[in-house]
């Protein structure tokens, strides 16, 4: 099995998807910047998107997975729009977008 065959196999897509997922989770856990956290979440969504497309081609032989990916992209855009508005509002009041600064509501 040469490298080109492997690169177009299901495993290759899944490896990329898993890497993206892990990087996304790592970004969410380690970033303090709210926009950084959102970028991490986008990575997770795209990992799911890659999985869906790959499975739809190799596993299900139907296009429903690809349709799902389109919806994931669409909804991620809607989410980003609302998220940036919320973050902007927070920045206006607090002059920072650091997630640690959101700390008034406590026990």
């Amino acid at each position, binding site marked *: 099995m040469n490298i080109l065959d492997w690169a177009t196999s299901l495993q290759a897509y*899944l490896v990329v*998807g898993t890497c993206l*997922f892990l990087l*996304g989770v790592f970004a*969410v856990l380690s970033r303090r910047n*709210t926009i950084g*956290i*959102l970028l991490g*979440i986008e990575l*997770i*969504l795209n*990992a*799911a*998107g890659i*999985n*869906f497309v*790959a*499975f*739809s081609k190799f*596993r*299900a032989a139907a296009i*429903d*997975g690809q*349709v*799902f990916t389109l*919806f*994931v992209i669409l*909804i991620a855009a*809607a*989410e980003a729009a*609302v*998220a940036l*508005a*919320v*973050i902007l*509002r*927070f920045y206006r*009041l*607090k002059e920072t977008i650091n*997630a640690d600064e*959101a*700390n*008034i*509501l406590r*026990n």
Partner: protein
Amino acid sequence: MTPEMMTNLKLFAPEIALTFFLCTLFVYDAVLPSLRKTLFPLIVIVFGMGLAIWATADVATGVQTYFSGMIANDGFGNFFRIFFFATAAICAIVAYGSKELETSGRTEFGLLLLCITFGLSLMANATHLLTLYIGIETASILSFAMAGFARHTLRGNEASIKYLIFGALSSGLMIYGFSLIYGYTGSLQYAEIGKYLTAHADGRPLIVLFALFLIYGGIAYKISAFPMHFWTPDVYEGTTSPVATFFSVGPKAAGVAALIRFFLTACATKTGEGVWTSIPGLSLPNAVAMIAAVTMLIGNLSAIGQTNVKRILAYSSIAHVGYILMGLVGMEKTGLTAILFYLVAYCLMNIGAFWVVGIVSDIKKSEDLSAFRGMGWSSPTLGVCMAVFLFSLTGIPMFSGFIGKFLLFGALLKAPGFLWLAIFGVLNSVVSLYYYSKILKAMYFERDEQVVALDLLPLHRAGLVLLAIPTVVLGLFFGPVIEFAEKAVLSFL
């Protein structure tokens, strides 16, 4: 238009009616902004919801899926449709009298409310992962905007940002879970997933369990069950009261419906009339029992030390999700009936309690226990209604909350081996009595140094009494509602 499309659209009539009134409100608000100050938005919402309920009753015949198997039309889903529409109408009334929402914000609140209700209805009726995803995201994304309604306060913005980060993360993880399930089973349809998982029980990779856990996490975020509960108190405290009122009822009920539908169809098989067995190698009853126990324990223990009443109610709402999940342990019809009845009771008493907190915080600018001092004497209506809601939330006999808990515990005793959970639930109810009675004590046995006159709007008085009466009546004449819930469960797809 083919006949099939006509049938599909007919079955989707409640949501179409909702969308129509949403557009009406939107256009009128853009063209005639002066209508914001009038009763017009409220009338449109209440009338629209009434019409949607009527349309639901109209389509509530037969059990089928439509839109190529994406959405279910069954008694269970229609029960929840009516529940959401009614909740939306009540919340619109709650928001109308609130001073926390500026007059201009009321129409926006109504618009967001209707949009979210649409999402909730999709969530409860989804039989396909794509519909579930669209429903959850419609509800979530708009909720982020709704949570930020107190836009000039730091607390409101913090609530919004916390809700946003946890919500986006949990839905992202859920989507990843969907993709793994899709890869393993090759289908997005609940029923197909269930068939595949049952047929391939041997040698099931561990990743399937991981995927199911991620999906549970996404739904648990909506119902604020363990392990995705921690955002609840912060968000409820930071956001405005009408928003917290809605969040504590609508999305939770939708999450419970989605949870029941997904796990009973995709991870269990129907083995008889209203009886389900989980697929081999996966013990749903044990998992649900553990989650229920931990959820109610966390909710009740965290509520004990709180002094902010909204925060107490937020933790109590976590505990109530724990009680509700107990009904799913037996995986048969009495438990599900109990869940539906409990949701109705919970809707009335919880909206009432949050509404009282909203009214008090409007007048006294504080939600602290000290703001409730002497309230029972200075405003008897508010005091008596709050007492009714709190008694019912505790589960004291003669109130609807008691009947709900009684049914839940009764269903649990039918499932062998879960006596410990029933005893645990009763003990938890006893713990909850402590923090609810703290509010009662402040209302009736403590005096306020400066007496502030609490003048209620007629709307508040009438609304609270109209919520308090069914809370008591459902504790005495519960038969019809239970029958209705049972019928709904029996026609579960």
